[in-house]
């Protein structure tokens, strides 16, 4: 029982590479679909009253079926992916930018009043359930792609600030930073070359993982009708449309959900494998 416990790291790494490839393929397909959405799915908005609630694979003109007013679901999903990706990527970018700047400032001023205040702010922010925060914010601003991006990054930045801050605090008293300082390295060089470079292995896997999380959160707000509003298409509001048909046409809510899960899995695969590959403790073996 005791003997086979050590995880064979070599094998773990091999598996990560397979998952990484799968993840990249999924994400690449999603990104291409999003970029070329108007070309490959021109017919997302026009209803076909004659063909309401067609089942998937029934009519090859609408391979994934049609919704309650006869719009092509595949086309709508492609536009939904486009909205998800724009909001997911933009919000993670914004959050990591704010979080990193604040984390570095906070880490270098720690211990001190500035650091304490910042950490209290992140406490408050993290103590606040994201959904409630989003609900309040979205009653103040009308929900659209920009405001949802801002709201999502508002909820996410404290996580980045904390990661960066703790990494900076851990590193700034390390011998090699002291050694670099003694050798006359400039402040800027220490920030970018030493601390920055050691931050990256921890940060890079967070991007795909958080994009996955933000894609889910956006679809959730849209599903609860406080997110993206028609006519802009989001996977969340496609599913909201399907909400009334769970009993009669259950495929209607199944298909967008599967689409969303596959896309999110793609990002999670990339993040998980990067975590394994970039972890220096594992890499050493």
């Amino acid at each position, binding site marked *: 029982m005791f003997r086979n416990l050590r995880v064979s790291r070599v094998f773990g790494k091999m598996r990560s590479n397979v998952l990484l490839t799968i993840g990249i393929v999924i994400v690449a397909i999603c990104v291409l679909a999003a970029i070329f959405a108007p070309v490959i799915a021109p017919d997302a908005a026009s209803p076909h009253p004659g063909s309401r609630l067609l089942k998937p694979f029934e009519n090859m003109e609408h391979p994934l079926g049609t919704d309650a007013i006869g719009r092509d679901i595949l086309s709508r999903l492609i536009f939904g992916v486009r909205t998800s990706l724009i909001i997911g990527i933009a919000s993670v970018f914004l959050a990591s930018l704010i979080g990193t700047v604040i984390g570095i400032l906070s880490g270098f001023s720690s211990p001190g009043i500035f650091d304490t205040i910042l950490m*209290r702010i992140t406490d408050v922010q993290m*103590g606040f359930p*994201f959904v*409630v925060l989003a609900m309040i914010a979205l009653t103040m601003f009308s929900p659209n792609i920009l405001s949802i991006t801002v709201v999502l990054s508002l909820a996410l930045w404290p996580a980045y600030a904390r990661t960066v801050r703790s990494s900076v605090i851990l590193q700034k008293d390390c011998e090699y930073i002291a050694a670099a300082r003694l050798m006359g390295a400039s402040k800027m060089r220490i920030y970018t070359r030493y601390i920055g470079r050691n931050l990256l292995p921890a940060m890079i896997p967070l991007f795909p993982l958080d994009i996955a999380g933000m894609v889910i959160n956006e679809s*959730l707000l849209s599903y609860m009708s*406080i997110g993206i509003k028609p006519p802009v298409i989001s996977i969340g509001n496609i599913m909201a449309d399907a909400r009334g048909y769970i009993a009669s046409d259950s495929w209607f809510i199944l298909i967008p959900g599967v689409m969303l*899960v596959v896309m999110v*899995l793609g990002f*999670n695969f990339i993040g998980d494998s990067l975590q394994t590959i970039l972890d220096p403790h594992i890499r050493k073996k």
Partner: protein
Amino acid sequence: MLGIVLKRLAQGLLVTFCVVFISFAVLRSIPGDPAKIMAPNATVEQQQHIREEMGLSEPVLVQFQMYVGNMLHGNMGNSYFKGDTVVNILLAAAPLSAILVAFALIFSIFVSLVLGTVAGMNGNSAIDRIISSFAVLLQSMPNYWVGAMLIMLLSVKAGIFPSMDYSGPSSCVLPIIALALPLTSVLIKVVRSSLIDSYNQEFVKAAYARGLSGTALYFKYALRNSLIPLCISISSQLGFLVGNIVVVEYVFNFPGLGYIALNAILRRDYNLVQAVIILFSVFFFLINIVVDLGTVRLDPRLRKAEGEI
């Protein structure tokens, strides 16, 4: 121990106070006349009454002072949509949400301990890979969709559980599962990896060299050592759990706090929104304090650092 409790309570109270104040200020600064938004069909006199009651003509700080003063006397205003006092509405809804959270926590901890142990003890075997993949899959599924799938499979198709609205304890089962699954997926990973870490610890190897049996090693050494990471990740996941109440209750039309909060926001029932936010943050910090103290209690090294032993 008392010292730590007081310190944490003071910190928690301060943060809760900030949350309350900020949300109060934000809600009051929403453009538009709250009296008109809250009671659009009321007469001019009634709206004037609402304004006076909420002190809307006063500066925000004075309004806040009034609000806190009233709150301490057990008065959190009225909900004009529900036609009842906010306190009564909350008293009816809070127990339902509390049941969901409590059982979801129990479910997650139990399932993750079982599956995490099976995966961790068989590191890198087929069963480990199945469980780990299952956890990643669960993590990738939005829980409102999981809720919808549960309704589809277990209530519409199989007819085992009621699907929507509240009609007795059996209505809680599906919401509890939907609420618990995302947390469970995170905790499975935590239990698995911390068990593997524990078994690589020197003191576990030393105990093995003393001839301890496998069960003793697991319960007294490996599992014991894994409880702390488990506690820490539960506390870091609580925010999501509380937020997910809103989602799950919406999916199941479950009349708990989250459902009330969502409807209150959509109808701009500010007194109710404010009260739910306060309740959420108080609850959140209370649980955090419990988890924090639990962590300290569990780890003698932390107790030493806190000067307790």
